[in-house]
C-alpha cells in the first residue's frame, strides 16, 4: 500500500529529498546479502510504497512539495532530477513568491486558508494515483514559521478530508540554542495542534543528530545536509520493506498501519522517537564487524538510559526489580533516571537475523504496569541488509524519551508568555491568548500522562 509524503517548508523539503534518495539507493544496492529474487521483491515493495512508475521507467516520488518561497523547492526538484535515478512529479509542487518570516500565526491563519484549495487539490491528485493508499507522511519542523504553522493547518485539513487514512508527522525538534526567538511559542502551538489531528508524531531532535554526526561519523564541519542524511538513514531503516508477521515470504503491505497499531493506539501517548545502531562513517564501516548480541545490548541500554546514540551511554541505569507495585515503581524509576516505555518496536535487518535474540526487550521491568511485554513489544526481522550495514537495528519507541525536552520547552514558552513577550505577532493574525492557554493545557496534560507511567 502506498504512502504519500507531504514535504512542508525548507526543512520538510530538504529532508524529504534525502529520504527518497536514501530509500531508492538502498533498494538499488547490490550488497543486500540476499538472493536476486529476494532483492527484486524488496525493490518492488519499496517502489510500490514510495514511488510511481512512468513509461520510461524513472520512478516518480509520491510526494507533494509545499513552501512559501520557490528557492528550496527548485533546489530540491533539480537535485532529484540530477540523480538520474528518480524524480519528483511535474505538478506536485505548490509555492508562492514570498516567505512568512517565521510567523506561525501567519502560516496557520493566513497562508493556510488562502492556499487551502490549491494545496489540497495537489494532494488529492497524488492520492488518486495510488491503487491502494494507506496514509500520509508529513515532514515539517515545529519551530520555524511556514513549515510549522502551515503544517499544522494542512494536517488538520487532512484529518477532515481523509479521516480514514493514517497520518504520521515527522517533526524536527529544533536546537536548544536555536536562532528563532519565538521558537518555543511555535513549538507548543504546533505540537498541541498536531496532537489533536495526527495519529503519530515521530520526533527527531536536531541536537541528538548533531551529536551523532560529530562523535560517531567524525564529520568536522556539520552541515544541514549531513544532519538530514543521518535522519534519512534512520527513517529508511524503519520504512524499508520488512517481512509480514504471518509469513516470512511476503513483505508486509502496510508498514504504517502495523507500526501505528503497535505503538500509538492510545490517544494520549502519540510521541515516538527513533534510535538507530550502528552509525559510522563509511571508512570505518569496512573494518568493523558486529554481533547481534552486542548491538541489541547497546540498543536496550540506550532505551532504558534515554541515550541518543551508542556512545556515552549511562551504564549505571538498570531496570528496577520487577514485582513492585506500580506507584513505588514509578518513583523509583524517576530516581534512577530510568526511561519507562509504553511500547517498543525493534526492526532488525541483515545477516543471520533469525538468530538475533531480543529477549532483553521483553523484560516487564522496561514497561509500564498496564501493558504486558507480549502486547507492548514487537520485533520485525528481515534478511536483506540495509544500506551497506551488514547488520542494523532500529528502535521505534513510545516512551518517556521526550518528556524532559517537552517539559523544558513548555516551561520556557510559559515564561515568555507570562511577560507577554512577542504575543502581538500572533494576535495580529488571529491566534489569541486563549489559544496559547489551550496549547499549554494540552501539552501539560501530555507531560503528566507520560510522567505517570
Amino acid at each position: 500500500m502506498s504512502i504519500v509524503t507531504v514535504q512542508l517548508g525548507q526543512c520538510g523539503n530538504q529532508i524529504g529529498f534525502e529520504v527518497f534518495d536514501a530509500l531508492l539507493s538502498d533498494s538499488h544496492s547490490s550488497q543486500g546479502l540476499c538472493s536476486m529474487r529476494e532483492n527484486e521483491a524488496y525493490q518492488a515493495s519499496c517502489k510500490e510504497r514510495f514511488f510511481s512508475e512512468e513509461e520510461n521507467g524513472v520512478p516518480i516520488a509520491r510526494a507533494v512539495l509545499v513552501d512559501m518561497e520557490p528557492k528550496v523547492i527548485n533546489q530540491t526538484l533539480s537535485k532529484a532530477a540530477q540523480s538520474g535515478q528518480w524524480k519528483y512529479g511535474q505538478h506536485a509542487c505548490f509555492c508562492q513568491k514570498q516567505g512568512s518570516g517565521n510567523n506561525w500565526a501567519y502560516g496557520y491563519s493566513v497562508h493556510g486558508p488562502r492556499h487551502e484549495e490549491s494545496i489540497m487539490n495537489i494532494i488529492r491528485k497524488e492520492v488518486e494515483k495510488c491503487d491502494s493508499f494507506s496514509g500520509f507522511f508529513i515532514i515539517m519542523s515545529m519551530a520555524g514559521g511556514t513549515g510549522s504553522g502551515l503544517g499544522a493547518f494542512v494536517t488538520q485539513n487532512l484529518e477532515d478530508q481523509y479521516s480514514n487514512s493514517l497520518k504520521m508527522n515527522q517533526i524536527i525538534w529544533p536546537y536548544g540554542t536555536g536562532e528563532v526567538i519565538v521558537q518555543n511559542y511555535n513549538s507548543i502551538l504546533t505540537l498541541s495542534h498536531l496532537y489533536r489531528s495526527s495519529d503519530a508524531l515521530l520526533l527527531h531532535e536536531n541536537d541528538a543528530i548533531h551529536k551523532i554526526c560529530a562523535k560517531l561519523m567524525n564529520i568536522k564541519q556539520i552541515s544541514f545536509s549531513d544532519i538530514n542524511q543521518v535522519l534519512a538513514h534512520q527513517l529508511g531503516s524503519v520504512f524499508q520493506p520488512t517481512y509480514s508477521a504471518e509469513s516470512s515470504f511476503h513483505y508486509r503491505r502496510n508498514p504504517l498501519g502495523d507500526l501505528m497499531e503497535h505503538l500509538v493506539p492510545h490517544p494520549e501517548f502519540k510521541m515516538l522517537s527513533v534510535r538507530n545502531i550502528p552509525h559510522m562513517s563509511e571508512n570505518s564501516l569496512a573494518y568493523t564487524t558486529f554481533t547481534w548480541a552486542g548491538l541489541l545490548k547497546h540498543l536496550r541500554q540506550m532505551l532504558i538510559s534515554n541515550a541518543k546514540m551508542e556512545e556515552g551511554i549511562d551504564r549505571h541505569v538498570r531496570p528496577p526489580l520487577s514485582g513492585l507495585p506500580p506507584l513505588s515503581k514509578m518513583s523509583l524509576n524517576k530516581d534512577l533516571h530510568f526511561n519507562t516505555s509504553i511500547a517498543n518496536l525493534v526492526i532488525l535487518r541483515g545477516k543471520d537475523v533469525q538468530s538475533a535474540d531480543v529477549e532483553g526487550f521483553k523484560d516487564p521491568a522496561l514497561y509500564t504496569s498496564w501493558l504486558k511485554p507480549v502486547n507492548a513489544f514487537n520485533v520485525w526481522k528481515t534478511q536483506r541488509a540495509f544500506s551497506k550495514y551488514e547488520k542494523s537495528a532500529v528502535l521505534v519507541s513510545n516512551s518517556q524519551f521526550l518528556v524532559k525536552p517537552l517539559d523544558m520547552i513548555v516551561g520556557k514558552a510559559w515564561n515568555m508568555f507570562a511577560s507577554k513577550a512577542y504575543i502581538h505577532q500572533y494576535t495580529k493574525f488571529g491566534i489569541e491568548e486563549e489559544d496559547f492557554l489551550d496549547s499549554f493545557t494540552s501539552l501539560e496534560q501530555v507531560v503528566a500522562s507520560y510522567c505517570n507511567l
Partner: protein
Amino acid sequence: MSGQRGDWVQTSALWQLLFRVLSPLPAGNALASLALEVQARLVKSALCSQGYPRLALAQLPEDGSQGSRELLLALSWLLARGPVPEQMLAQARVPLGDEMTVCQCEALASPGPPAPHMEAEGPVDVRHVQWLMGKLRFRWRQLVSSQQEQCALLSKLLRTLERENQRLEAVLAWRRSELVFWRWMDTVLGTCAPEVPAAASQPTFLPWVPERGGGELDLAVRELQALEEELQEAVERRRVAWEAKAGGCGRGPEWSAARRASREAVEKELGALQQCWERDGGPAQPHGPHRLVRREDGAAGDRDLRAAVVIRTLRSQEACLEAVLRRLQGQCRQELARLVGALPGLIWIPPPGR
C-alpha cells in the same frame, strides 16, 4: 499497391504481425520496441525452425521495402497449421475469476487467529482499555482502506476483461470471414512461381543474443551451482544424522511390537479421517487451481473434475465441519453454564437470534 510508401507500411505491418504471432512470450513493452530489422530476422529464424518451405521469404530484405505477398503466404501457412488466434487468446487470457482451488490444504495448515488471552481477575487499568480501543479503531480504518483498494483493483480488472472481450469478438469476426480469406490465398498462391526445393542452400539464422546480459546469465549459473552444492551438503548431513539416530532401531522384539502398535493406531486414525472426508469414495483431490470450463459434450480428461463431484465433496466437508462446530458450541455453552452457576446473583443475557 499504392506505391513505395504504401508498400512499406503493409510490409512492415506484416513483419510485425508475424513477429507477434511467432514470439514465445506474451506482448510486452520490451519486445514491441525492437527494431524492424531485428523483428524480421527473428521471424525468418522462427519460420525456418518450424520448417517453412518457401525460400523466397528467407531472401527478403529486412527493411520492409518489399515482400508483402511472401509474408502474406507465410501468415496463411501458420494459420493453416494450427489455431493461431485461439493460441494467442490463451496466452493473453485473464486468469482472475476464471479459476478456483479445490483442495483445502492451505486453509487447514494455517493456524488461524490466536485465541484471545484472558487475564486473571484483577483491577483493570482504564489506559489498557483505551489502548485496546485504539487498536480496534486502527484495524477499522485499515479495513476501510483495504475496501477502497479492492474497489480500485476491481475496476482495473473490469477494464482488462473488457479488452479481453474485444479480442474474443475479433477472433469470432475472423472465424466468420475465414472462408473468403482462404479462397483469396488460393489465388495469391496461384500467381507465385513454383519453387525448386534446394535444401543445401538454406541460409542459417543465428539466434540474436543481446550484447549485455551475458553477465547476468553467468551470475545466475553460478548462483544455481552454489545452491546445488549447498543442497547436496545439507542432504548428506541429514542422511548421516538420520542413520546415526535410526541405525540401532528396527531390530528386536520390543521394536516390532511398538511398530505394530503405532501402525494400528495410524490405520485407525486414517480410517476415521477417510470416513469423514470421503463419504462417496471419490478420487483423491488434486491440488492447485482449476480452470472453470463449460463443455457441451460432457467429456472429461483424467485430470479433470466434474463440478457435480466437487460440489458433493464440498457439501460433505461442510456437514462434517458443521458437526464439529455444533459440538464445540455445546462445550462452550456447558462451560458458560458452569460459570453462571459459580457466580450467584449474576444475570447473563445471551445475544439475540440463533
